[in-house]
C-alpha cells in the first residue's frame, strides 16, 4: 500500500516587500519559505493511515521545485514520510498549476500509489487546481475540500466528508484509488521530533529530472501553461479611515458607525 502526498514549498511575505523589476512577482529577498499549511494536514492524514494500519503503508512526498524545496521535503521526512521525491528543471520555471499537475502525474504513474493526497490549495498562489488537475490527467475519481476521511489500506472505497458553504458537510463514497484534496482542520498535524529531524537530515531526497518521467523542456514552463502572470502589483488603498481622537471619542465614533449600519 502506498500513499503519495503532493506538497509545495510556499512563500509568505514580510510586512514590507518589494516587487521584482520585471513586475511579475515579489522579490525573493522578501519571501519566507515554508511547507504549505494545507500540505501539513495532507501528510498528517497519510501518517494516520500508515500508523493505524496492520499492513505496511509507504508514504511518499513529492514536490516540484528548485533546491530550496529540499528543506520542506526534509520536514515531511522528519514527520515520518518514508521517501521524498523532488522534480525540477530550470525549464519548469513559470509553469502554472496545470503544468505542475502534469509533472506530478508522471511521477504518480511511476510510483503507482493507491491514494493521492494534496492540499486544497497553496497559501501563496491559491489556485486550488493542482490536485484536481492531477486527478484529471490520471482520470481518477477525486474529491475536493475533504474535512474527514474513513479509509483503510486495501479498501476499494473511501467515505469522505466534504466541507460546503454554510457549515454543511457532504458525505461522499468515492472509488479508490482516488485523488483527495485535504482541508485544514481535518486533523492535528504533529511537530517533528528531534530524532526525526536528525534522521531526516541524512535521508536522501530523490531528485528526478523531466527526462526521468518522460517529459522534456517543451512540455513545461510558462510557454506550455494555459495561464501566465502578466503583472503583480499592489492595488490602490481603499477607503479605510483610522478612527482618531481620545479613547472615549473613538468609542463614541464606533458606536455611531454601528448605529448607522443598524439604521438607528
Amino acid at each position, binding site marked *: 500500500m502506498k500513499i503519495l502526498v503532493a506538497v509545495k514549498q510556499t512563500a509568505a511575505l514580510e510586512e*514590507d516587500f518589494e516587487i521584482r523589476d520585471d513586475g511579475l512577482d515579489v522579490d*525573493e*529577498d*522578501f519571501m519566507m519559505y515554508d511547507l504549505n499549511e494545507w500540505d501539513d494536514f495532507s501528510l498528517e492524514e497519510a501518517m494516520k493511515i500508515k500508523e493505524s494500519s496492520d499492513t505496511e503503508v509507504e508514504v511518499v512526498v513529492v514536490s516540484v521545485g528548485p533546491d530550496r524545496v529540499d528543506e520542506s521535503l526534509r520536514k515531511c521526512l522528519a514527520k515520518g514520510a518514508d521517501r521524498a521525491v523532488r522534480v525540477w528543471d530550470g525549464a519548469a520555471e513559470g509553469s502554472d498549476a496545470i503544468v505542475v499537475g502534469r509533472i506530478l502525474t508522471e511521477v504518480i504513474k511511476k510510483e503507482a500509489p493507491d491514494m493521492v493526497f494534496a492540499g486544497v490549495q497553496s497559501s501563496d498562489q491559491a489556485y486550488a487546481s493542482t490536485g484536481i488537475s492531477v486527478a484529471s490527467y490520471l482520470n481518477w475519481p477525486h474529491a475536493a475540500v475533504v474535512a474527514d476521511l474513513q479509509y483503510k489500506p486495501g479498501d476499494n472505497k473511501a467515505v469522505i466528508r466534504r466541507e460546503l458553504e454554510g457549515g454543511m458537510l457532504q458525505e461522499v463514497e468515492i472509488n479508490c484509488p482516488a485523488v483527495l484534496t485535504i482541508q485544514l482542520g481535518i486533523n492535528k498535524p504533529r511537530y517533528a*521530533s528531534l*530524532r526525526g529531524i536528525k534522521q531526516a537530515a541524512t535521508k536522501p531526497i530523490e531528485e528526478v529530472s523531466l527526462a526521468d518521467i518522460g517529459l522534456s523542456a517543451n512540455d513545461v514552463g510558462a510557454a506550455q501553461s494555459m495561464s501566465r502572470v502578466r503583472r503583480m502589483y499592489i492595488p490602490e488603498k481603499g477607503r479605510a479611515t483610522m478612527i482618531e481622537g*481620545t479613547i472615549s*471619542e473613538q468609542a463614541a465614533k464606533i458606536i455611531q458607525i454601528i448605529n448607522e449600519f443598524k439604521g438607528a
Partner: protein
Amino acid sequence: MMFGSADALVQLAIKSRDPYVAAAVHELATGITKLELEALICGTRRTALAIARWEHTPASVLTALAGVHDEAIELRLDKNPGTSSSVLSGLYEEARSKDKAGLTKLIAQHLNSGTEVLRRIALHANDSECLLALSKNPAANAKVLAELSERASGSDIAVAIHKNIAQNASASAELLTRIFDASDVYTQAAILGHANCLAWLIAKAAASEEVLMMRVLARNRRVSKESLQRYAACEDAGVRAGVAANALTPVALFRHLIKDKSELVRREVASRVDLSEEHIEALSRDDDIWVRQRIARSPTTSLDVLYRLAVDAVADVRRAVARNSMSTVHLLNMLAEDKNAWVRSGVAYQANASQRILMKLADDKDVDVLSGVANNPNTPQSILKELVSSNEADVRRGVILNKSAARNTLLPLLEDPYYLHRVLLVHNPHLQAQDKWSLRDDPDFQVRFSVYRWAANICLKMPDTFLVTK
C-alpha cells in the same frame, strides 16, 4: 567541553556559520572577529533583512546593520523595538536628508528615539503624520510636547495633536492646563483622567454636568466625597460604575450601588475588597453571572458563601471558587469532583490544592485539567515525570513552567518536538549549564540563538568566568 570564554564562544559561533548564532554573540566580539560575525549576519540580503526585522535581534547587531545602508534594512530598523537611540538618530539624519517622511514617522513614534531627535522632529518636520505620531510617543518629554503644541497651534492638526498630548503620559501639568480651556469635551475628559492633571482643575470640573467628564472624574481618587455622592445618583450607568470602582467611595454608598439597576455597576462593586459580609451576601445572590463570579473570586468572601457558590448552576462561578485563594482543601476536594472540566481545571491550578487532590486530578483525561496539574508546584515529582510524556503540548509546557519541576523531570523535555518548549528550557533555572549547552546544535534557529545568547549573557555579566563542563 562547553565554551571556555567569551573568545571561545565567539569562535564557536563563527565556526557554526549560523547567522542567528553570530547575532547572539555579536556583543562579545571585537575587531576582526566582530567583522567575521557581521559577514555571517549580512551573508545574503535576505538574511540581513530577516535579522533586521526580528524582534529578538540584539541592539549591537541592529547597530551593525545600520552600516549596510540599504533602504529596506533601514525600514526594518526603524520598526524594530530593539533599535538603539543612537542608530535612530543616524537614521533620522538619513531620512531627513532624503526627505523620507514615512521613515521619519517611524522614528517619531519609536520608544527608543532620543529627546534631541524628537525635538528636531517637533520643530522641523512638515509632515502631519510625523507630528501626530510624535504627539502619541511617551518617549517625547514634557518640553518636546510643549514645543510641538506651540508649533501646531493654529494649524489644521492642532486639535488632533492636543487630543494625543492629553493622553500622553509625559505631558506636563502646565501644558495640560493650557490645552484644557480651548479643547472639546473629549480632550477635556482625557486631561481630567491624566495623572499630571492639577487638583484645582479637577475640583473646577467636578461641578460639570458633562457625562464624559463625570465618567472620568467618578473614577478619580482626587475628587471629593460630595462629588462622588452626586455621581452615585447620576442617570448614566458609566458614571455610577466609576463611583463603584473608586477606592475612596464611602461605604455608605454601597447599600445603593449593590442594588443598582445596571449590572455594570454591580460588577464593579463586586470587584471591591472592602465589602461587608452583608454586601457580599447580597451580591452572591445577584442574577448576573459576572457579579457572582467576582464575589466567588474575592479573597474577602466568607467560606459559607464560597460553599454556596461552589454549587452554583453556572460553571464559571464554580471555577471562580476553585481559583479563590481562600478556598480550603475540603472545598477544593469537592470541586475536584465537579462534572465540568473547566471547574476541575481551576482546582488543578490552585496553590492550595493538596498533593492528594492533584494526584486524583492527574487521572483526568481533560487537557486543561492536566495542564493545571502540570503547572502546580504542589504536584508530586512522580506525577510530573509521567506528564512529561503527554501527547498534549500544553501539558508538557505546564511541567516546563512548574517552579518545582526538578532537573531530572525536565531532562527528557530537552527532546521536546515543540521548539518553543526547548527555548523555555534554555531559561529554566533548574537545568544545569551542560543541559542547556546540549541544545546548541538544535535544528531550530531560535533555540540555537537562545542557547548562545544565554551563554553570551553569562560572559557579559561575569567576564572572568571560565565555563567548562565535561
